[in-house]
């Protein structure tokens, strides 16, 4: 499962952030997760809850997910539309020459710490 690897990387990055900021305990972590980032929210929460117990720094931390909607840009008519609803075909003009503008991101936005 993809989320397994993802969570281990997030925790390692958090360990670095904690060291830089003299933090020993993290209360919450906010992740921004794009709608088409390939990350399944329920799965990442499951993996988080399983992994966090093994890491003192985050063992009590709550995971918060901030979703980012996916938006596609049509190069033919130069308009945007909702990716998940219409896929790669532009609902305004029917063109398939379209590109994702946002929605694939996956980032650690902020943490709360003592």
């Amino acid at each position, binding site marked *: *499962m*993809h989320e*397994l*690897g*993802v969570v281990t*990387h*997030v925790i*390692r*990055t*958090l360990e*670095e*952030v904690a060291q830089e*900021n003299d*933090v020993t305990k993290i*209360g919450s972590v906010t*992740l921004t997760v794009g709608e088409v980032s*390939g990350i399944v929210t329920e799965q990442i929460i499951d993996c988080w809850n399983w992994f966090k117990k093994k890491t003192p720094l985050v063992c009590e931390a709550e995971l918060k997910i901030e979703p980012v909607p996916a938006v596609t840009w049509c190069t033919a008519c130069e308009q945007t539309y909702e990716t998940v609803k219409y896929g*790669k075909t532009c609902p305004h003009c029917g063109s*398939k*020459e*379209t*590109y*994702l503008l946002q929605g*694939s991101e*996956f*980032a*650690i*936005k*902020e*943490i*709360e*710490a*003592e």
Partner: protein
Amino acid sequence: MKVIEVGRAGTDANDRDADLLRRELKEKDLFLINLMSAAGSGKTTLLSRTITDLRGKASIGVMEADLASDVDAAAIEALGAASIQVHTGGCCHMDAVMTREALEAFDAGEARILFLENVGNLLCPAEYDTGAHLKVMILSLPEGDDKPLKYPLMFRESDALVITKMDAAPYFDFDLEAAKRRAKALNPKIEIFPVSAKTGEGMEAWENWLLTAWERWREDA
């Protein structure tokens, strides 16, 4: 409680591991190539043909990443090339730590060019830097010419795109020019090689590019 802005990609720690590994490999004169594609696109077949064609010009080793099986490594070994099977334990992509572990277990022998055959999947392998010096992706003709639109990151991240199974062109409505145009729109620098690993069509252009990229890398201080 205080709030600390982090603003880092979820892959941040991996990116640094990858940079370190890339430098270490350079010191050992090992040129690592991350080969990515969907499952069954023809990664193992392309590698087998490339290894055979370049015999005497370059010694190639292969690390085969797979969820669980080891048929790919056996195919490479049958050619007399160094290979190792890496089981990702259910993870659908290789990252820098996994690549480092695989390299430590790998007896590459004479090989100076190492291919990492990534897990067959067009999504997450594109997000995780493995420490490779070059990224090559495969799109096979039956998958369709619209794949750049569906998986833009993979096309943006790759140095070269090999379009395989060209011998099957009569049976599919794959528009080669459209595929090229879409890939170039995402990544103007991407090199594109239409090939058939079955008939050998186009293989020379791909192999010459590979050798040139390797030479250039070796000359780089």
